[in-house]
């Protein structure tokens, strides 16, 4: 038996496989396909203080082995979440983490305060990297001072696990990672989507209502892997890697690069059972390679 458990700076995961925010709904959408209690964790949809309608249609464009989205944090607001959704999902036998977004620091703080009161939510993922909203979002994640400011403010009010999710649209990701660690992050997740664009040559129009959107899927894996490697070397807190993970082999690559856990996003759309398969695949890889504890893989890249 391979030991797949991970201690993510106090947050206990039964295995390193989590689902990425905005790609797994509230988990409910996947219940017909597999038992989500098999997962290490679920990052629920991006949640904001107030209800948000998100961006206008069209919000999605396919790209070479990837996709652009411009959802724009559509959600009913954190109070609706606490009242109506939380009761439905709180007893799932996995870590249900809330992905928190905002336009101002005050937004983030107030949202985190509401989530802090929800007993069965063991942590939040602070999204300082959403490229699809006009205010806030990515802007916070692209400079050290603003990233630190929002993390410090939330840290003051949020008592449980504070994961901070970085934007890849920066010159120096290691610097930002170190900054948010200094500001009190318990773990760091990356990457959010790369800012991209798609055009229909025939109609000469952008394919997204917002012109630019967030790129995800297999295409971004090399960039994500590099950034995870850079951040893992720059910080002491655990790193949660994502970006283009489609298979167990991809997940292992991220762990070798230094990720203690991983998240799977876009792949869920193509195979709703993919995360269960990745859990199995991690176990098989460890068994084949004689790895007894999966933690032995973390950062085990041989240079």
């Amino acid at each position: 038996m391979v030991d797949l458990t991970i201690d993510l700076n106090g947050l206990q995961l039964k295995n390193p496989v989590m689902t990425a925010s905005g790609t797994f709904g509230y988990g409910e959408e996947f219940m017909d396909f597999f038992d989500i209690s098999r997962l290490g964790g679920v990052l629920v949809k991006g949640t904001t203080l107030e209800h948000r309608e998100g961006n206008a249609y069209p919000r999605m464009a396919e790209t070479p082995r990837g996709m652009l989205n411009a959802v724009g944090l559509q959600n009913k607001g954190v109070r609706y979440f606490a009242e109506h959704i939380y009761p439905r999902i709180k007893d799932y036998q996995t870590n249900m983490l809330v992905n928190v977004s905002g336009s101002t620091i005050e937004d983030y703080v107030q949202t985190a305060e509401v989530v802090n009161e929800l007993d069965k939510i063991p942590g939040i993922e602070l999204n300082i990297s959403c490229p699809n909203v006009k205010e806030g979002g990515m802007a916070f994640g692209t400079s050290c001072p603003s990233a630190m400011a929002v993390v410090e403010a939330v840290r003051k009010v949020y008592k449980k696990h504070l994961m901070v999710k970085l934007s890849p649209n920066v010159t120096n990701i290691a610097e930002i990672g170190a900054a948010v660690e200094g500001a009190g992050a318990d773990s760091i997740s990356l990457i959010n989507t790369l800012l991209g664009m798609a055009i229909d040559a025939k109609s000469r129009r952008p394919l997204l209502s917002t012109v630019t959107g967030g790129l995800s899927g297999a295409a971004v894996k090399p960039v994500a892997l590099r950034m995870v490697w850079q951040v893992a070397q720059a910080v002491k807190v655990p790193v949660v890697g994502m970006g283009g993970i489609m298979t167990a082999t991809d997940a292992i690559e991220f762990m070798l690069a230094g990720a203690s856990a991983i998240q799977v996003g876009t792949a869920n759309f193509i195979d709703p059972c993919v995360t269960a398969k990745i859990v199995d695949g991690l176990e098989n890889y460890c068994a084949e390679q004689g790895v007894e504890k999966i933690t032995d893989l973390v950062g085990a890249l041989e240079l």
Partner: protein
Amino acid sequence: MKKYIDDFKVVHNERLNHEYVILTLQHPGRLPAMLPGQFVEVRVDNAPHTFLRRPISIHDVDEKTNTMKLLVQEVGEGTRRMGQLQAGDTCNLVYPLGNSFSLPKGKRVLLVGGGCGIAPLLLLGRYLKEQGIAPRFLLGARSKDGLIAMEAFRSLGEVFTTTEDGSEGTKGFVIHHPVMRTDTPEIDQIYTCGPEPMMKVLAKYAAKHGIACQVSLENQMACGFGACLCCVADTRDGHKCTCTDGPVFDSTYLKW
């Protein structure tokens, strides 16, 4: 409704013309219940440019043989690959997805389709007939060649046709067909699926004549089952997912 993911076996690929095929897919075991208006998400294998699944309506269902039919119009790499599937091949589906057409307001129904939008109307027609409601179809195309799978529709009810070039049926768009061009059309319920401009014209027509109208929308979908929130339509209640709240909407519910 419970959703599934399964490998189906292609048992038949009927080529209708240069751009349309009907695939008959067999479930490995017992096909679960599926409703008219629902769709499947097809995984397209061996296609370098097709990253996501492709949504395709359920065209017909045969519970006796545990098969369903998909009517596919080849418009890009994904649908072209589907058009190349051969008996014996495997086709992985996530299904059944979306809501469904609901029972009509009145017995006089008209099912209006254009292009590959005729696909869900066959199963709907079969379903209505089973409920004792005689479906009438109005199918439009650019020209005669575009009027496909006619026998299947005729076996269920009356079929009217229009073509833009007049090569068959009434010349013009569906809205120009005599069945609609009276002051008091004998229609209680329109069901429609096809190009958005067509459906918008029908929705307006329905509103004017006090006819109920259900439209089946297309949209850019990444998942097809409510996980990504990419596929919204603008409704009176704000953004709603075409893949879970739709694809079928009451035309008056949409902000058209």
